[in-house]
């Protein structure tokens, strides 16, 4: 019996079918998903079947154990212990700002094997790269954002890992999925399936997905093995915070315009007997818009209405007022739309970060914010997840998607522990608009 790695799968040459494998007519061999590598090896060993294992082709790796000076907080240590107890597989669920990265780094040092970290955004790629470089004092490989450089420690975007899984799948002993709630998506699932890495770690602040697909994480990573809620940590390790919700009315002109557009949308729904209860219902309308010009008009009107609500003059006035009240604080401003980001950046001369901002400028802005050179930053979705922004004590949400996850992650950004600090999170919404519902949905996750 001979096992080899073949572009994201394991080819098994031999005259016996092993669990998890099937006969492949094309190659005239048995074949199994890379995901099952460890199970297959365990099975062969337990059954005393002789086999040659040519699957792993690990990258040459320097010693990663030596100068680890990391001190874990008690709950971080508990999380790591739980993971080790679970045969070094599984998902750790901790709020943003509680130091998930450091648990990953500790796991890498402990296993002392080539490791790949898969992350959703370029900013997280940059962040993991600099943290790993700092900790292990070696060059770190990067896949994604135009870079393709594979080293014993490599950080990759989900997209690059998906594209290159067939080539990278047997090169790493450990695979870490940061923000692993992304993994169960139809395409990304392949990454976990096409890597043989016997050791797997998932990190996230929000295990559950609205579509229920998080159950897939059991199969792909080993399920949730440790969880701490935000209120279990707040105060002790995270800053306490105060939530202030500010509702502002639309100006008369805006209101007229808003109602007009909103009516086009609701009229369309009524005419076609559609009720919007979930994002899936809404997606149906989007799909219809491909064929039905009426649906497209309705969608355009809805977007227009939303834009009016999001960009309302009263909102900008309120925003300006809050800024004045916190002249000495460090403020982080979130808004969903890039147009709004640019408007704020332009009018208030606040550094902006969008998904288009080059990584060099992004790091510089964040760095200067950390040091206090800049005392405000405005951003769109790009910082939704996991980027370290220490020391912000004011957060302002100018518009939001209404998604629970996005809200929790954004909130986490200003909840870094600091002596005697109370963080304030403002949420500015337009009253009398459908945005109220969005805000209600967001708050649900705090309860």
């Amino acid at each position: 019996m001979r096992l080899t790695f073949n572009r994201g799968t394991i080819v098994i040459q031999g005259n016996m079918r092993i669990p998890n494998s099937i006969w492949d007519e094309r190659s005239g061999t048995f074949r199994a998903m890379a995901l099952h590598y460890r199970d297959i090896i365990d099975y062969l060993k337990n059954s005393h079947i002789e086999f040659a294992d040519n699957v792993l082709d690990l990258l040459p790796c320097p010693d990663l154990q030596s100068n680890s000076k990391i001190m874990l907080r008690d709950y971080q240590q508990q999380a790591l212990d739980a993971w080790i107890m679970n045969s070094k597989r599984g998902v750790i669920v901790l709020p943003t700002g509680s130091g998930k990265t450091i648990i990953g780094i500790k796991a890498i040092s402990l296993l002392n094997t080539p490791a790949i970290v898969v992350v959703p955004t370029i900013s997280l790629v940059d962040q993991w790269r600099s943290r790993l470089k700092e900790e292990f004092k070696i060059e770190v490989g990067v896949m994604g954002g135009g870079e393709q450089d594979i080293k014993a420690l490599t950080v990759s975007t989900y997209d690059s890992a998906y594209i290159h899984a067939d080539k990278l799948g047997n090169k790493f002993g450990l695979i870490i999925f940061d923000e692993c709630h992304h993994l169960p998506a139809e395409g990304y699932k392949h990454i976990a399936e096409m890597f043989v890495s016997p050791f797997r770690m998932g990190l996230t602040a929000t295990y559950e997905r609205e579509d229920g697909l998080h159950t897939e994480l059991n199969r792909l990573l080993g399920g949730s093995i440790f969880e701490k809620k935000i209120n279990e940590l707040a105060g002790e390790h995270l800053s306490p915070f105060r939530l202030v919700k500010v509702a502002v009315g639309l100006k008369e002109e805006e209101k007229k315009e808003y109602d007009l557009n909103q009516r086009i949308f609701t009229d369309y729904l009524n005419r076609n007997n559609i009720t919007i209860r979930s994002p899936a219902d809404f997606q149906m309308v989007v799909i219809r818009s491909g064929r039905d010009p009426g649906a497209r008009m309705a969608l355009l009107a809805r977007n227009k209405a939303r834009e009016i609500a999001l960009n309302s003059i009263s909102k900008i006035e309120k925003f300006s007022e809050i800024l004045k009240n916190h002249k000495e604080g460090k403020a982080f401003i979130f808004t969903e739309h890039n147009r709004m980001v640019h408007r704020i950046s332009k009018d208030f001369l606040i550094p902006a970060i969008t998904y288009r901002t080059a990584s060099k400028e992004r790091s510089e802005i964040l760095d200067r914010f950390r040091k206090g050179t800049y005392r405000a930053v405005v951003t769109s979705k790009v910082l939704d997840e996991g980027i370290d922004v220490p020391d912000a004590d004011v957060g302002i949400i100018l518009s939001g998607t209404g998604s629970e996850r996005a809200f929790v992650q954004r909130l986490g950004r200003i909840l870094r522990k600091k002596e005697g600090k109370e963080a304030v999170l403002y949420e500015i919404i337009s009253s009398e608009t459908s945005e109220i519902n969005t805000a209600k949905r967001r708050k649900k996750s705090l309860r």
Partner: protein
Amino acid sequence: MLTSDLLVTKSHKGNIEPVYAALEQENIDISSSVINLFQGHIEKSYGELIDEIEGIEEINYRLIRGLAQILERRCIIEKDSIIEPVAARRVVFEECKGAVTGPEERKLVLDRAAGKLSIEPADLEKALWADQEENLIIKEFRTITPENLLRQYNLSLTQTLLFKATGMEIRIEDNYQQVFRKIKQLGLMYSIEQDKIYLDGPVSVFKLTEKYGTALAKMLPAIMKCRKWSLKASILRKTFEGKRIYDFTLDHNRQIFSIDFSYGVETFDSAIEKEFFLHNFNGWLARREPAVLKAGKYAFIPDFSLEKKGSRIYVEIIGFWTPEYLKNKIQKINQLKDKENIILIVDKHLACSGSEFKTDNLIFYNEKIPYLEIIKILRKYEEKQLAEDIDRLKGIDIPLEGSVINLREVSGRYDVSGDALKTVIKENTGGYLLLGDQLVNDQTLKAIQDELEVVKKHSEAVKIFEKYGIKSQQILDTLGYKVKWNGLDPENAEIVKI
């Protein structure tokens, strides 16, 4: 290739197809207006262009966006500012530190920053956001005809649809080498069943996956370079009733693209192959990469076939090699089903003994193609074929009717060589005489003979032969005449009874 939101499809009874833009006046008009928009925005901002496109996209949103996406790739877009925007922002934000909350404060900050940079505040304001997409300037645009843009659009639609393919079946009749090289390069897997090649990837054996859709889409240009091709792809689509698999079929007869890949230019791996292709083998016609043969689990594409009258012999030329390559090749050839029908022409300097190939038709060559030996082998096939044909014909009762019978037509009808037919016919001509490639019955011969009695001129005799449909010059001889040439003018030639 387009972004997937711009893909429009129609489906019917399990079949799916992109909504192609037919080369009709209406679409040509739309195409040319979008091109004109791009043309008219050279030296203007990208934002203005986008606004204008949004202005007309109500006509046909997806088509117009799709065309614009293709045209964008033909533009050079640059930023227009006197200093680097990133540097400009750095200075302004440093000056501002926190945030300004009023127009006067804002102006003060900008003035101070402009002073530090030694530029005008207005230039600074412009530079500050010059790298934002909508502020970029279109510097160059490579134009295209409206028809060609529509063709490219249709091709892009097809590839965008194939992104969602879980597998694809293709049939091709040439260009095998390039197609299989592409398959390998893209990391796809194939299985061959008769003339169908089924393509998917390693993981496909476990589940339906779109993972290889991009690779399948990238196969398209190579497939389209074949003279004759067809494909059938399985497309995974999310519908109101969940995921569905649709069939997408396309072949060389569809005139939606008619993109000229300028095929027909033969390129050869080596000089020896070119030489082989151009040589005449006694009426055997050489074809390049004529078929894909199944060699165990591999595909084997012979370099050439030599074809003549129902016989097809494959030829593989093994010139440049490495030990690994050779081992592979031997292994493949040994697994071929029709080993006896392949001729191997191996470079003499190859250090392998003939015994490693399980085939008789092995010729070593030294710099030049060994034609005589090849023809010798071909003759063996000819003889074998002749014997087979004769055998077959003997069992058939060939009806002979009419005054003159063309043997070529008869041999074509029975799919045998003319030689075989002649051999069989000779044994029993039953009231007919064999004249070249024709059989002439006795009555006709008699009639011709009678008419010739009163003819002297050769040209008149020829007219008589033509009237009866006889082609062979042998007839004069047969009837006991010869031609007497009087000078150079054939009009003066006479026939004389011997």
